[in-house]
């Protein structure tokens, strides 16, 4: 029989059951699930604000170290502008190299944030609540890093505005038949959409921060929260806006990586000219993106002391997601290569021979990192809830997915149709420095951001906690969930 008690207190002050066995069950549930373990919102707010203000020597050391890499990135880029792209290892056959691989990689890790926030929101998956913003931040800065690479890649950056659809004295519009223009359009739409989505969800938390800070923070949060007061009408509008943006941004997300894959699939280059590249790239993007979010979750939980918000249940859920994506990626990869191998066209055979020959170590490491490691470990809940294990697995996935892009771009390009043009590409110091520095740049922006914006969407957590509680059913305590007013 369903026990129905009307409690008069606030949601975080539920009366403890008098039955000892039931009490034990409820405590177990509270340990496991954030949303069943409510604390007074004021306490959470204070905790979040304290972590945002905490900047010890280690933090500044990280800022300085990562900032050094950022400076190196721009120094190398400027050197490259002055001397020409000749300082890279690119050549006549391999016209695109790690710069484009980085573009694909960073757009890829930008896919998980939106998926976790928008798709899981629409599916009413409550585990996303505390991790949504950490994931969206990966999206935002991942896209910002990706947007750097077309600029670093082109030969004449000072003429880049020729690619923009702006009225100009040359009376020449950009060429919309070029996949590069589709790409730029899709990425811009995705960037605007995901920034708007993230910002809308930030407003209540910024208003909370405004009400509890002084000085420059108060002014900044005051300006950014647009006078949010938390009235019923404002909440309804926010929920509606978030839902609309979810429906808008999910198709955009799918389009972005499909179009990125078309940069390759639309070309006549052997190995690229494949009809399966669209979904294959989306799965690869989500795969590396979810792994990147897992790594960020582990780092912020450890560095900012957010163990209350980010719990084992979240790593468990993300681990299952990562495993499913690993299976899907494996399916696409083997589909791609089995068909190519069976087709046995000479130009594509040369690429297969290269993958298992000259590039063999990278190829097999990729398969190991993307298939053996995740599928061999993530089936176990003990592994999924162990932070060090999850960090290592996510790191392997990053390496595997990065190698996949490297193999597809400079790798495949080094075996064009006419054997006279076969080359072996090796990166030179500019590509290597800029690639490493970009990862540091992402970290640099992320840690600065984590001290400016609440990295946990507190209002979402509080909303989830208010909607969930435990109810007694017979001799068992069970979690229950009230539908919101959506």
């Amino acid at each position: 029989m369903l026990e129905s008690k009307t409690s008069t207190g606030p949601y975080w002050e539920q009366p403890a059951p008098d039955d000892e066995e039931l009490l034990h069950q409820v405590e177990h549930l509270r340990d496991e699930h954030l949303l069943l373990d409510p604390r007074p919102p004021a306490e959470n707010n204070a905790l979040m604000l304290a972590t945002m203000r905490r900047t010890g020597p280690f933090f500044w050391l990280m800022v300085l170290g990562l900032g050094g890499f950022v400076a190196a990135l721009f120094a190398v880029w400027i050197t490259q502008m002055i001397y020409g792209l000749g300082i890279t290892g690119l050549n006549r056959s391999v016209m695109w190299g790690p710069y484009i691989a980085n573009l694909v990689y960073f757009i890829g890790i930008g896919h998980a944030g939106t998926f976790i926030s928008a798709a899981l929101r629409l599916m009413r998956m409550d585990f996303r609540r505390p991790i949504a913003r950490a994931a969206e931040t990966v999206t935002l800065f991942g896209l910002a890093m990706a947007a750097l690479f077309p600029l670093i890649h082109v030969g004449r950056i000072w003429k880049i505005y020729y690619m923009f659809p702006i009225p100009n004295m040359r009376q020449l519009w950009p060429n919309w038949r070029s996949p590069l223009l589709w790409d730029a359009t899709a990425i811009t739409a995705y960037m605007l959409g995901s920034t708007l989505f993230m910002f809308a969800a930030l407003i209540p938390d910024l208003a909370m921060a405004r009400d509890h800070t002084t000085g420059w923070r108060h002014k900044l949060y005051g300006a950014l929260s647009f006078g949010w007061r938390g009235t019923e009408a404002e909440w309804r509008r926010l929920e509606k806006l978030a839902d609309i943006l979810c429906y808008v941004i999910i198709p955009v997300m799918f389009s972005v990586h499909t179009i990125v894959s078309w940069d390759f699939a639309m070309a006549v280059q052997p190995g690229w000219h494949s009809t399966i590249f669209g979904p294959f790239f989306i799965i690869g993007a989500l795969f590396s993106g979810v792994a990147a979010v897992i790594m960020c979750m582990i780092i912020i939980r450890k560095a900012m002391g957010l163990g209350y918000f980010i719990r084992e249940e979240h790593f468990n859920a993300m681990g299952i997601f990562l495993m499913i994506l690993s299976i899907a990626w494996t399916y696409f990869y083997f589909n791609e290569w089995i068909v190519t191998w069976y087709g046995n066209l000479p130009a594509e055979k040369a690429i297969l021979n290269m993958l298992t020959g000259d590039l063999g170590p990278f190829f097999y490491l990729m398969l190991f990192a993307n298939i053996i490691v995740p599928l061999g470990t993530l089936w176990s809940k003990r592994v999924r809830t162990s932070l060090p294990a999850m960090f290592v697995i996510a790191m392997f996935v990053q390496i595997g997915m990065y190698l996949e892009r490297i193999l597809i771009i400079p790798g495949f390009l080094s075996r064009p149709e006419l054997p006279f043009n076969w080359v072996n590409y090796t990166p030179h110091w500019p590509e290597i420095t800029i690639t490493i520095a970009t990862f540091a740049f992402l970290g640099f922006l992320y840690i600065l951001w984590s001290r400016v914006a609440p990295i946990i969407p507190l209002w979402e957590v509080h909303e989830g906690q208010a909607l969930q509680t435990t109810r007694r059913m017979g001799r068992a305590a069970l979690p229950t969930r009230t539908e919101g007013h959506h």
Partner: protein
Amino acid sequence: MAENEHKWTMIVDLDKCTGCQACVIACHAENNVPIASENEVIRGRGQHWIRIERYWEGSFPEIQARFIPVFCQQCNNAPCEPVCPTYASYHSDEEHLNVQVYNRCVGTRYCGNNCPYKVRVFNWYQPQWDEPLNQQLNPDVSVREAGVMEKCTFCIQRIRRGVEAAHLEGRDVADGEVVPACVQACPANVFTFGDLYDPESEVSKRLPDQRQAKLLEHLGTEPAVYYLKGGESHVGE
């Protein structure tokens, strides 16, 4: 067919090619093609607009070299054209050539990727010529800066000059009036160049030929370059 239209076409008789590279040198001189250092060429950065691809057949001592001069095939259905975001690579309907506008190029290098013949070259550095080569730059051809793509133009400056001179005299350009630098330099008469729309031109008379083939024809690029190759003929036989 419009009045001024020409279908510039090249025939390359592989059975005559000795691999002497005179065409490569002539092209460098005519088109102000930058000269890459030996190291750069080893790194795959040769700037040549025309190159002699050398393939070995058989195994020692029964070994034969085969030479194929490869340059821009001036495809009718060129893969490099649609992918350019700035129309730097576009199709000239008048000359039926694939044209590269250096000033529009931002250097995405997509055209270079998408060219199955890999005949498009990129200016990796600011071009430089050692003394006294800098004294002989052709004033009819612009020198390209670092960061732009370039490629064989069928010596479009010579085509334009020939066509315009003929127009001033009130006639159409005659066969043999326009001669690209590689054609002019070749000691073995490998190349035949002309207007396929002119039924009296030498290319029109020689085509179709039993020995004709196009490079990577299966890709559907419709090149304007015809290669002639007999069954078992070898250089030096």
